[in-house]
């Protein structure tokens, strides 16, 4: 008897699974309530929920930006992420191809009330910024003890 079965829809490759999840989420209505400013503006963002929690994880691809080049600010329920690249020495020569977008950016993300942007944490690794915004304590389910006389 097989202990594990991989159906056609559940491939073993985690990257493929992620891509399929992302593809499905492209049509998700979640984003419409977020009040994302500067839509379609660089850099692109992905928003996740951590399974089993109400924590929100915002992922931003910002290649070329060192952690020191990025600042994250919270104002009420809004997170403002901005980046200012360290000055690059202008190189002499002719460009054959210029596809990369470099330069300053800023994006604001309006988060749902269930999370607390003031307690957000951020890590930036290999040009990917990951912001974790934890759920507010008061929305977490609580067991209320029952006492009787």
């Amino acid at each position, binding site marked *: 008897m097989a202990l594990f079965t991989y159906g056609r829809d559940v491939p073993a490759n985690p990257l493929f699974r992620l891509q399929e999840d992302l593809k499905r989420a492209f049509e998700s209505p979640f984003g419409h309530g977020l009040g994302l400013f500067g839509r379609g503006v660089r850099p692109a963002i*992905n928003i996740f929920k951590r399974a089993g929690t109400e924590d929100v994880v915002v992922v931003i691809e910002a290649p070329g930006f060192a952690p020191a080049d990025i600042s994250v600010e919270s104002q009420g329920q809004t997170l403002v992420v901005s980046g200012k690249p360290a000055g690059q020495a202008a190189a002499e020569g002719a460009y054959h191809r210029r596809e990369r977008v470099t330069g300053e950016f800023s994006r604001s993300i309006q988060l749902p009330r269930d999370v607390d942007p003031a307690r957000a944490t951020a890590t930036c690794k290999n040009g990917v910024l990951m912001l974790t915004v934890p759920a507010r304590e008061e929305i977490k389910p609580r067991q209320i003890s029952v006492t009787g006389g």
Partner: protein
Amino acid sequence: MANVEVGRDSKPGVASEEQTRPDRSYRPNVDILETADGLRLWADVPGVDESGIDVELVDDVLTIRGRVSAAEYESLQPAYTEYSVGNYEARFRLSHTIDGSRISAKLANGVLELSLPKVETAKPRRIQIN
């Protein structure tokens, strides 16, 4: 005066190998700058670290591959998305003016930077008029 051919392989379907993994790869955004000494190439590969990058020169075809890790996405459920995540792959056909033995690469903050020096005979020279 661009005498260095940097065009992408015109027949990617022929040159690329058969895919054995089900995930999708993406072509990174690149900048290519030609200077008097050679070419400089930058490729955006966010999410790729040193262990995941692969730069290969076979004959005159330069291949860049970057593998991203899906580990950080474990237990994350997409709620709103603007981009997909995938490995990176790009191929370039280099002209013979590039000295393949002196190509160097470095990776920082998700950007791969390659330096492709020209062979000495291909560098511009000023000819003195007597």
